[in-house]
């Protein structure tokens, strides 16, 4: 409608989540009409990132260096390793400030029916780390879903066989949760992992 170049821009913007043809058009026109400077900056930033960002060789989150900032930070607890499913999970734990060790990101969970087995989520690499490094505790922080539990079970068994201490994050009644409204299976878990005071 506006010519090849603009059409290409609009089409490219649609790769973003939640961006349909209408919003893509609005974004493209905004960048061109009012904010050419930002447009150039955005273009550079995207090109730079697409070229330079790889994955941390240790934990597999995005990183522009071989080792990400967390893995390369020697003030962090080196003997604790926390396994999460996604980078978003890692960021959530980081934001809570509750953990000072390092991570391993699976980038998924076991899903045998879809052909996603241990190799597809980097479990071989994780086990290699457990053998190579001096890790005392492996914390399994995969989701509390059937798939997350299946994944935790799998990794837990392998890690125990290597003589590493393994723990699973606790699950139960959420903070601010009223028992009356907590579902049955959560209550069941809360009771089975109750703590002595």
């Amino acid at each position, binding site marked *: 409608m506006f010519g090849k170049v603009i059409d290409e821009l609009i089409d490219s913007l649609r790769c973003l*989540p*939640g961006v349909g043809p209408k919003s893509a058009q609005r974004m493209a026109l905004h960048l061109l009409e009012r904010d050419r400077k930002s447009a150039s900056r955005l273009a550079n930033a995207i090109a730079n990132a697409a070229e330079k960002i790889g994955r941390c060789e240790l934990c597999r989150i995005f990183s522009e260096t071989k080792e990400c900032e967390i893995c390369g930070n020697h003030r962090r607890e080196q003997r604790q390793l926390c396994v999460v499913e996604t980078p978003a999970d890692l960021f959530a734990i980081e934001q809570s400030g509750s953990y000072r060790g390092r991570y391993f990101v699976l980038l998924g969970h*076991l899903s*045998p*029916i*879809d*052909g996603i*087995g241990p190799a597809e989520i980097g479990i071989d690499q994780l086990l290699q780390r457990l053998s190579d490094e001096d890790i005392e505790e492996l914390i*399994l922080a995969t989701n509390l*879903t*059937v798939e997350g*539990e*299946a994944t*935790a*079970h*799998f990794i*837990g*068994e*392998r890690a*125990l*066989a290597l003589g590493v*201490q*393994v*723990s*699973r994050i606790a*699950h139960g009644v959420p903070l601010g949760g009223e028992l009356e409204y907590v*579902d*049955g*299976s959560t*209550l*069941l*878990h809360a009771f*089975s*992992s109750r703590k002595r005071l």
Partner: protein
Amino acid sequence: MRTESEHIAYVLHKRPFRETSVLVDLFCRDQGRIRAVARGARGKHGAKKLHLEPFTPLLVTWRGNSGLKTLVRAESAAQAKPSLLGHTVYLGFYVNELLMRLLAEDDAHEYLYQHYSELLIRLSSSNVSTTSQATADLSNIDLSNTSNLEPLLRVFELSLLEEIGYALPLDTDSLSGTPVAADTWYRLIPGDGLVSVPAYDGASRHELFAGAHLLAMAAENYQDNEVRKCAKRLLRLALANQLGNKPLRSREFFESYAKNLIETTGSTRLKTTSPSMGSSEPQI
């Protein structure tokens, strides 16, 4: 007019669909296997409204009559129904994959549904080790338990074949119609059933099934390890005829899982179920 109805169902499988949705296969008591899209199920909000965990009965509501349906609601049907834990989950994945592959859409199988839910209860009550019990030690891992579960899977596979119209009578020679004899060897003819082999040719023994083992299977007596092995071979073959060339991925997963566990733990305890045999990893 929109049609909405409430059903009791299990999630067989789900996979991401578009940006925030999930495509889910359900096994409904009164509708068989259906496929529905759960819009926004991957968002924070959607996950609350749509509880889509496998192996627990759900109360689901959908819109649409045939083909792809739209899931409106899904919540846990029963209070605190234990889900599968530990390696029994992997067996559950296997059973779900079988149902995904072999059940046609929108074809009710109430008996099979009942059998499935009983199977899950039996599997969940056999949970041995769970990672929820933090730092469980290795001695808790006992795969011989899986061998005790094997017969449950075989009986379920037989009833699945029957439900989809490929019943496998274990006590009748399907060619002559005569009862299976304990001292005779049989061969599985795809589409026909078990047929006696008059002159036993030692070379093709791996394709043959002993009458005595078939009769034990018919009586659901799986005490003897040889009967289990016969049942596994027979059902593999019978299922392969329905499944075609595409392998069952969850079976491949479980086999490598069990094999590796034996190698890494080096446990002889795992082999107790069949002391006489060299290769004895528990299989499904």
